[in-house]
């Protein structure tokens, strides 16, 4: 099932073109891996897919307006003056909270769950932020560099989770420097827009 299709999208900042005339499709049960060097516009492309940023030219067509999207960008969207538990309580309703706590346990964050998030390490904060995506039921998952800062165990956990979600029919779009263990289409940025 088609979720999104992009036609000839171009994005420019201060009249400098970041990418030029990209076209692609996003389907459910299918992964899309966006590759590209620094500053090639990977994050911006994700934000265009999400509808946060609008492309300078071209159009994004969404086939389901009420699509449930789970997203984690390079900003963690967690409050560092709250504890991990408080953060999760802000994000989830009572039903989802159980699953969220399970992930907290799986990621080995249980022993710091009542510390201030500001005192957690970068990797721990990243894991906490990932729970936002992992514990929400969604039809499309959008991730910006999800593997950065994760140890091997967590990387495997995340990979397994994503593979499982793909088999359940969830769409997936992500950017990553590392080659993931997930079978997916690849979109290269920064090759044809020099």
């Amino acid at each position, binding site marked *: 099932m088609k979720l999104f299709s992009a036609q000839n999208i171009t994005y420019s900042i201060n009249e400098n073109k970041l990418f030029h005339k990209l076209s692609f499709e996003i389907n459910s049960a299918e992964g899309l891996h966006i590759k590209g060097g620094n500053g090639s516009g990977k994050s911006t492309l994700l*934000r265009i897919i*999400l*509808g*946060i*940023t*609008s492309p300078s030219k071209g159009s994004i067509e969404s086939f389901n307006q009420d699509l449930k*999207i789970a*997203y984690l*960008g*390079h*900003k*963690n*969207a*967690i*409050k*560092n*003056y*709250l504890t991990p538990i*408080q953060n999760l309580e*802000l994000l989830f309703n009572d039903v989802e909270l159980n699953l969220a706590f399970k992930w907290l346990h799986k990621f080995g964050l249980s022993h710091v769950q009542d510390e201030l998030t500001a005192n957690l390490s970068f990797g721990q904060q990243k894991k906490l932020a990932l729970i*936002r995506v992992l514990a929400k039921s969604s039809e499309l998952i959008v991730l910006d560099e999800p593997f950065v800062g994760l140890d091997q165990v967590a990387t495997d956990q995340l990979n397994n989770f994503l593979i499982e979600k793909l088999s359940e029919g969830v769409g997936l779009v992500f950017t990553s420097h590392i080659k993931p263990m997930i079978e997916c289409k690849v979109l290269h940025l920064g090759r044809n827009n020099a």
Partner: protein
Amino acid sequence: MLRLIKSESFKLSNKLKAWLGPLLIMVLVLIAFPLSIDISQYDLDKFYFSIIVVSLLMTSFVATEGMFEEDFEDGSLEQEFLIEKDFYKLVLSKIFVYVCLIGIPIAFIGALFSFANGVAIGSFAKVFLLLSLSNLLLFNLFAFGNALSINKGAMLGVLSSLPLALPVIILLGRAIRSIQYGDGFSTIIILMLGIGLVMSAIMPLIISATLKTHID
């Protein structure tokens, strides 16, 4: 909406600096004023109001500083956009929470100090009502200034929203006069209430558009 009000008040009440700070600043400014003049020579009750008005202006600015900055910097705004598709409800609940948790206590302090300085006790309720209403107006305006400047510091926010707040100050001055001379108070309160309601409905629209521009 209820979810937003809940989470905003939870966040604000966990940031001691953000809600206790403005209250303390209000008290300190109100203390500083009598110290700066020779109180034996002046009737404080004649112009103590003016310092209440100015410190209200200052404090409500300090209070709204960083209203959207944190959510913008840590990416919460983007996440909220994915849920609601705009920021109207978020802004509305933020302003509501800020007025309740900071605006009304500040108004209370102001009213308290006004009758500590020789204003008749009978007008305490009037002054309190008046200051609360003007805080509703000021918080709306300063929220706009802070949304414009977002992470560029308070200075820019003041510069862009303080001119908008001047009519409110004049209205406030007029209302205080009417308390002192006992005429036309209810007309002004109704006028301010009307402006406050209209502003609370429209300002979040504008602020929402401003925030959308920022995350774009």
